[in-house]
């Protein structure tokens, strides 16, 4: 590969979807039936480029497999702005690393340099491939799904712009650009949730998603400010100035090589918590998860792309990217894990009683993202790579499940309530089979994708909870947070040597950390992680239960179709079911299918099976591809340990404190058995309750008693947040409005009368306007002169 090719490809990956989006916006309706072409071609080419990048980003950066060196390539497109002497760091602070920030001849001030820089490293390459490939499949699927929608240009333009923004988000090498594109994907998400903005539910859901995300964005903004004040730069990478000096970036190799380069303590914990707040908003973690279920009001392909596979993983990416910042704040890490495991459990519990197929999947997404956060919070190399591994497999099978749900919805004329249809495997064999594969992957049944990634997450949690059980040979003389000595040792040990388990993990050993102690560090004990491990195991069982409950309700039992299904030919979106666009009926007539007069959902046998049918090939082929991927990707990546070794060269994961936690890859048979057992129990319970039964029959939920209300009302999160956040804010707004009307408006009116009065005075002298103007001007100049003379004689 020529040396400049990776850089060119890296620029092309976001650029091509951007061009596709612009072409769609500009030409839009003129493209007629080929309106999807720019998006499909642009994202398709970007996928090819991302595949090549994966090759380019490979390797261990020149290091050994055990101690990979950071591998990164940065491309500075242009210098956006430079603000000279923007910060004057205190000597000895991380912003002025001794021996590193050499060169500047003046007082050591540093410019705020805002460059548009893209980066390529294994983490970015992985994310780019996930984003573009899922984006491509979703775009192809949408050709069928959005076929009859009059606003197709808007949809494809938004999807292209989303892929562009998301690619930029993961390829940016500066916190400022990350912030910019963090907002950009939020805006795309807002516009796609509210795609059918004439429906009040969609508009409301879009607004809710936007506002809840703003809370998280606020955290990101604070984090960026704090990072700037602490580190004196916003770049990830080291920058070489023209005079050859190196300005160390926040996640650059210079700082990574320095054991004391990252700030722990109160400030470090605060930064990490702000980043976590941001990640919680985007990735729908408790308590900011409330927007994601409502976001299902958008078109299903958009849900699959944005609200299942890619955008919601931005938080996971952010935490993984900032791994060196987190590992020096064990307290913040513990909070990450706690939030993640709690979210996983709560969302899974809520998911068990949902009746809307898409909402089951939405809660499942929240729950799986919780898994990823729990894994990230372990702060180990295995934990970080397991989270990204689960991110990749989850993107595959969750996109598959969402697109399958979209296929069902498409065929059912927009009905998505599982109680109103059943036995669909008879009419939609491909959708049913692929959905089944996706469910097995989600439930964690071996050898499907979810099994392997979930196993690694459980293993990472287990390793923190029971460090002794993981071959822990303790090097008591080694400090915990990866001081240089530990790094060298870790790099020198051959692969057969016993892994290093830092002493601080053992609940009994006092932690002799060189870092400042953060305010929350008392949280990070083995006991917490033991609890989180059990929570995750229970969640695994619940996941299998609600997934197969959905499968059994939708695809097994007697065939039943809702009356809307008869109108579902021609591929219009679910909005038609709500009668807002009103071309659903037209489609039914023109396609000439004989609709069954008695297809009213409760007489299964009488339904004319021809009324409903499998989705067109343009929709089912992406399903088949994704099903194939869900089948093999977990096994493939696990058996080769490919992803773990690949990601290990990511600069962020080569921080000494992360590398110190490296353990040789292993298959944990005991954990695998526990996980599989949990899944089996869940599936068995679902089968007892729902297999072969009518989906509207009374089910297992009736045994839950009052808990069912709790779950069905989603733990009252919406109500609590309404009472705790929204209501006080509304009161404040009401009060502010009152003050504004009475006090401010009064003042403004009073002030506004001044220019009016002034104007009256001027207008009174309007007759001799020229002379007055001259007089006023000369008088003003004289006044200035007098003032100057007076000042001089002072």
């Amino acid at each position, binding site marked *: 590969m020529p*040396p*400049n090719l990776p*850089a060119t490809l890296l620029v092309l990956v976001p650029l091509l979807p951007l061009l596709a989006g612009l072409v769609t916006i500009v030409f839009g309706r003129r493209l007629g039936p080929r309106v999807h072409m720019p998006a499909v071609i642009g994202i398709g080419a970007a996928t090819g480029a991302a595949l090549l990048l994966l090759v380019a980003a490979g390797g261990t*950066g020149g290091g050994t497999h055990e101690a990979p*060196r*950071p*591998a*990164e*390539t*940065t*491309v*500075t*497109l*242009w*210098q*956006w*702005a*430079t*603000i*000279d*002497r923007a910060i004057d760091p205190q000597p000895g602070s991380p912003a002025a690393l*001794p*021996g590193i920030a050499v*060169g*500047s001849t*003046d007082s050591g001030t*540093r*410019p705020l*340099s805002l*460059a548009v820089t893209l980066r390529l490293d294994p983490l970015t390459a992985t994310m780019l491939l996930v984003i573009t490939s899922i984006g491509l499949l979703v775009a192809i699927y949408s050709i069928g799904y959005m076929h009859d929608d009059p606003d197709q240009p808007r949809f494809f333009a938004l999807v292209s712009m989303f892929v562009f923004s998301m690619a930029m988000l993961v390829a940016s090498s500066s916190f400022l650009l990350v912030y910019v594109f963090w907002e950009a994907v939020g805006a795309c998400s807002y516009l796609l949730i509210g795609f059918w903005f004439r429906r009040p539910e969609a508009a409301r859901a879009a607004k809710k998603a936007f506002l809840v995300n703003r809370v998280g964005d606020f955290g990101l903004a604070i984090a960026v400010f704090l990072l700037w004040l602490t580190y004196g730069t916003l770049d990830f990478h*080291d920058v*070489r*100035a*023209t*005079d050859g000096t190196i300005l160390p970036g926040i996640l650059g*190799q*210079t700082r*990574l*090589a*320095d054991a*004391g380069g990252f700030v722990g303590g109160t400030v470090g914990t605060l930064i990490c918590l702000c980043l976590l707040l941001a990640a919680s908003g985007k990735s729908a973690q408790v308590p900011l998860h409330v927007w994601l279920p409502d976001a299902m009001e958008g078109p299903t392909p958009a849900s699959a792309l944005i609200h299942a596979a890619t955008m919601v993983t931005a938080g996971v990416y952010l935490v993984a990217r900032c791994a060196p910042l987190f590992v020096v704040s064990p307290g913040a890490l513990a909070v990450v894990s706690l939030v993640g495991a709690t979210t996983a459990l709560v969302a899974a519990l809520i998911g068990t009683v949902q009746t809307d197929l898409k909402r089951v999947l939405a809660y499942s997404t929240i729950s799986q993202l919780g898994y990823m956060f729990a894994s990230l919070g372990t702060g180990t190399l295995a934990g970080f790579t397991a989270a990204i591994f689960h991110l990749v497999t989850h993107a595959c099978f969750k996109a598959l499940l969402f697109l399958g749900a979209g296929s069902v919805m498409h065929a059912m004329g927009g009905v998505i309530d599982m109680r109103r249809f059943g036995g669909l495997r008879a009419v939609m064999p491909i959708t049913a089979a692929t959905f089944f594969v996706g469910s097995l992957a989600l439930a964690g049944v071996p050898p499907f994708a979810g099994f392997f990634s979930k196993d690694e997450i459980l293993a990472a949690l287990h390793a923190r909870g029971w460090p002794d059980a993981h071959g822990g040979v303790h090097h008591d003389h080694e400090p915990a947070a990866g001081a*240089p000595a530990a790094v060298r040792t870790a790099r020198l040990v051959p692969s057969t040597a016993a892994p290093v388990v830092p002493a601080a993990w053992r609940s009994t050993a006092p932690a002799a950390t060189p870092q400042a102690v953060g305010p929350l560090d008392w949280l990070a004990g083995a006991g917490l992680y033991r609890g989180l491990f059990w929570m995750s195991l229970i969640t695994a069982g619940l996941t299998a239960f609600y997934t197969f409950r959905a499968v059994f309700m939708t695809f097994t039992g007697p065939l039943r179709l809702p009356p809307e299904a008869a109108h579902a030919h021609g591929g219009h979106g679910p909005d038609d079911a709500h009668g807002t666009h009103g071309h659903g009926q037209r489609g039914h007539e023109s396609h000439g299918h004989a609709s069954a007069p008695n297809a009213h959902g409760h007489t299964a046998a009488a339904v004319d099976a021809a009324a409903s049918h499998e989705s067109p090939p343009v929709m089912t082929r992406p399903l088949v591809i994704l099903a194939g991927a869900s089948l093999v990707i977990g096994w493939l990546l696990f058996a080769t340990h490919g992803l773990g070794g690949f990601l290990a060269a990511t600069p962020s994961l080569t921080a000494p404190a992360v590398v110190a936690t490296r353990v040789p890859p292993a298959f944990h048979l005991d954990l695998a058995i526990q996980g599989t057992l949990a899944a089996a129990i869940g599936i068995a319970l679902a089968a007892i309750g729902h297999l072969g039964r009518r989906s509207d029959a009374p089910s297992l939920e009736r045994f839950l008693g009052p808990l069912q209300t709790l779950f069905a009302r989603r733990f009252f999160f919406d109500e609590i947040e309404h009472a705790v956040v929204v209501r006080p804010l509304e009161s404040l707004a009401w009060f502010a409005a009152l003050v504004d009307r009475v006090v401010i408006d009064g003042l403004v009116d009073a002030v*506004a009368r001044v*220019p*009016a009065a002034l104007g009256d005075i001027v207008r009174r002298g309007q007759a001799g*306007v*020229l002379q007055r*103007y*001259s007089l*006023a*001007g*000369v008088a*003003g*100049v004289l006044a*200035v*002169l007098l003032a*100057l*003379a007076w*000042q*001089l004689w002072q």
Partner: protein
Amino acid sequence: MNPTTSATFGLLAPEITLVVAALVAFLGAAFAGLRSGWLVALVGIAAALVLSGGQAVDGVAVSGPLAIDGFSTFVRWLVLLLGGLVALVQAGDVFRSAVIREPQPSAATGEEAGVFLLLLAGLSLAGVADDLVLLFAGLELVSIPTALLLALKRTDAQGQEASLKYFFLSLVASSLFLYGVVCLYGIGGSTHLGAISDRLRTTDPGTVVIGAALVPLAVGLTLAGAAFRLAAFPLHFYAPDVYQGTSPGNAALLSTLPKLAGVVVLLRLVGLAIAPPTAPAAGYAATAALDLLWPATAVLAAVSMTIGNVMALRQNNLRRLLACSSIAHAGYLLVGIAAASAAAHAPNGGTGLAGGTLAAIAGGGATLFYLATYAVATIGVFAALTYIGHRWPEWSAAVPRPPREEAASVADLEGLSGTNPVVAFTIALCLLSLAGIPPLPGFWGKLSLAAAALEVDAGGWGPRRLAFVALAVTLVVNAAIAAAYYLRIIAAMYFRSTTRGVQTDGGIGAGVGMVACLALLGFFTLRPQGLFTAARRAGAVVLRGVPATDTAGHHPGAPSSPAGSSAVAALSPVSPSPSAVP
């Protein structure tokens, strides 16, 4: 002073080209039936741009009363660029009439274009002038053609009134400025700027006494001359009346090119009092001039921006509103001048490239950068208004042919985003830039102005620092006030439905000018760095921060910009060296 030689003509080639083009336009219109005078103007400006580009000299070329250095080159480029944009706007429907051979509307374009070219030549001369007489002549060559253009472009009573008002008030301002020039001559005993600067900085007691007496007069009166051109308090009164009474194209001219002249005059004045790095420390008269100049400009800045913005809040006529806004922007520009003159004389600062001089350069550079971004955005708005032209008439049976009404009020723009999305987008983007919304260039301009103000005496908390912190706060508060009336226009365009619509009969030239301004704004949004570096370098030259021979502006004190210039900077995996680990 070097004698005038043939080299002078070589250096003046761009200005001479402009004058020749003006003559072609005049004579062609009078004798050869030339209809497309503005086309001649555009060709002339393009030729002058080429000549001035070929003339890029390193260092300084002094010949006769001229000094071509980094500053005058920047000014010349800015003049020609803004002149080209304004000419496009002014051209209006002339290109169309040149094709259709319509006799009526293009009758006076030859005269208009010629006068406009003379104006540009005068402004460019003021930029290159190294001599008070040439400076004054250049400024007059701006004022008189402006008054003529006001009269030519609009021949109704309103237009004549505007022209007369502008003419008489410019006479008043010119006479005040002339007194200031006389005082400077009295101090320096020469009209050459270098000689005046030397005398200002002298420590010879005899000269100091004369200087002390004349310095306040010279500072105050020169400031007055500049204030009129900037439309700053207390000589701002003409702006609303004149803008309202003339065409949008003329308003685009009035709000940009004279401001450039004012900034040139003020920066030259500050530069006079600053010692070059090689020279000894400043003398008494020079420091007195700086100590007098900064409070005066700071007060005028604060008053101008407040008055302008408060007046603009209640305007409904677009040109009147933008006139008030241009008064406010004059105030912003003066902030940079005040910062430059205050920082140039740091009470405890040493000679040469001390922190004070760097801060002064920051002030000068910020002023020039802000001026450029402001001018592009303002011309963009006026180009769009020219392009919009007239409202659709309300037809009725009673009046067979209703008079055409100019689209001039905020209400006339209602619903423009639906009928003319590109025009609405241009206006919105330009107004947002004027309001200083990030990441548009206006934001960078306001940021650098505020940063320059905050850099004055940044070490301690003396009274000067307090004053400049207060000035920066005033600037930010005023930017917030200004956003109110800019957003009112944007709200009208985007959130109201259209009532009558507009004809967009302003001609293709205005449309091209509008799109050009939009493209420039977009470019400066994505890459403000180049313009900023150029402005800073020009400021460094005029404020004597660097020896004029070193136009690269690279001095050891300035932080070197990171290696972002190379398109591909692949960092090779660096192995952490043991020395980096403490």
